[in-house]
């Protein structure tokens, strides 16, 4: 029997890149983390700390130099059917309508057309995109496209959802609306989420635990439990003392790493 905290395991994951001049750059250094089934983990760190690399290792777009990433005890990249990936870039296929984009993973899995329709209609309705099904990406706003990206990753009901700064390019108002929507969706069926961001407030507002990463090489600096109750009302979270405490504690940690990253950038 596996305990629930063994759902997703990062086991001493290290990733070293060969740099063009022949040297070696360590992007991820000994990253170890056990994630329970249904947990919402947010990872925050200075830019360039290898957060995106970590997600590419999960889905097998890249291989760890050492260590392993396991879902239910088996390598994660062999279980892509169980992983939904939401990228930072707007990756809706421009030649497909919103509906066809959401149905893409279902098509790959051979689901019948009528079932696909039902599933996509239901998901698009949930995030307020009903009526926009037949639009192409360029006919949608940035916030709508990103909602499309998210429901596409949810369409095939994966057990693990990994998100790489999904709300990064959005304006502040849209971002709060989408964060709230994401939390509401998550509460409905409690998938495991790994959510990467550089925005500390976002990390605290969404996560059960916040993982703070160091500047390059990316290591875990600390893991912080967020004791905010659920469901959370993101519009009024800022007044919550628990939120303020978490923010000031974590900010001190993150600030060190951000200045370390900046010092590295100046060199």
């Amino acid at each position: 029997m596996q305990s629930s905290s063994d759902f997703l395991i990062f086991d001493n994951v290290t990733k070293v890149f060969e740099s063009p001049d022949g040297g070696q750059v360590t992007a991820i250094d000994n990253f170890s983390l056990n994630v329970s089934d249904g947990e919402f983990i947010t990872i925050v760190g200075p830019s360039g700390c290898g957060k995106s690399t970590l997600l590419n290792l999960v889905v097998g777009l890249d291989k760890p130099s050492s260590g392993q990433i396991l879902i239910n005890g088996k390598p994660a990249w062999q279980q892509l059917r169980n992983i939904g990936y939401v990228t930072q870039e707007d990756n809706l296929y421009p030649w497909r309508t919103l509906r066809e984009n959401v149905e893409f993973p279902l098509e790959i899995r051979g689901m019948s057309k009528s079932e696909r329709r039902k599933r996509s209609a239901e998901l698009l309705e949930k995030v307020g995109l009903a009526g926009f099904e037949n639009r192409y990406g360029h006919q949608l706003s940035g916030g709508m496209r990103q909602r499309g990206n998210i429901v596409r990753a949810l369409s095939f009901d994966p057990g693990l959802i990994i998100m790489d700064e999904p709300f990064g390019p959005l304006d502040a108002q849209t971002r709060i609306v989408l964060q709230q929507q994401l939390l509401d969706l998550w509460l409905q069926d409690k998938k495991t989420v790994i959510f990467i961001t550089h925005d500390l407030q976002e990390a605290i507002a969404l996560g059960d635990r916040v993982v703070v990463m160091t500047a390059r090489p990316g290591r875990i600096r600390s893991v912080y439990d967020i004791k905010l109750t659920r469901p959370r009302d993101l519009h009024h979270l800022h007044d919550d003392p628990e939120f303020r405490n978490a923010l000031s504690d974590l900010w001190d940690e993150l600030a060190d790493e951000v200045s370390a990253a900046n010092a590295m950038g100046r060199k």
Partner: protein
Amino acid sequence: MSETSKPTQQPQPVAKPKRSVNTTLIWQLVILVVLLGSWEVMSGRLFDSFWVSKPSLIVSYIYNWVLNGDFMRHLTATMTEIIVGYSLGAGLGLALGLPIGRMERTAKILDPFLLALNGIPRVALAPLFVIWFGIGITPKIVLVFTLVFFVVFYNSYAGVRSVERRYVDLAWVMGARSFRLFSKVILPAAMPYIILGLKLSIPYAVIGAIIGEFIASSEGLGYKIQLETSIYNTTGTMGGIIVLMILVVLLNSILAWIERRALAWRPPSRSSDAGGQGL
């Protein structure tokens, strides 16, 4: 559809672009009339109409040729050469260009050979094709084929190479492998280039057929044009040329129709569209 939760942003109003299309059409007609009119008026006054003929003569020549002459025989010969040569060239161009676009090494190995072959002026090959294949339609089909093939090959090859890595990676993560990855991501992403190649190669196909007929033939629009020129019938020459022009316009509009259907997803303003690079 009044009080239901329909999207607030309806598609752009349709009336305005339509009006501007009509104005465009009017201007195009005006230019056409002015050009043809001044040709008609000046021919016989400023120039001797023996050399340049005039629109009214050409129209009546085409009219008689189509109704009473051997128009259909020549048209059928030329069209057969174009359609068969184009289909073979485009078919093989796609069949090789699309997969080789995914095979970097093969592409590198083949590159100098393809460049050299494509560098041969096809007109220089035409007499050789006559020696090999006679004066029937075969050498013309081969000539059309050699011209169309490279245009379609290079464009579909470049199209596949241009597909953004992130699209392919994400499809891979979502479970798409080999055939589905190709048919659902690479092919549609490369489609603008593919269509461009198919469109660009149409005039080449027509040129190939006509040059082939110039070199040696007993039928076809090229043969007819040369025949009329050799007896100093400029009206007949112009008539043949105008028929060819109409042919190219028609063939192009068929592809424009296909393009509108296949690329309906593209934003209307191409200048500001990243997907339009290289077009």
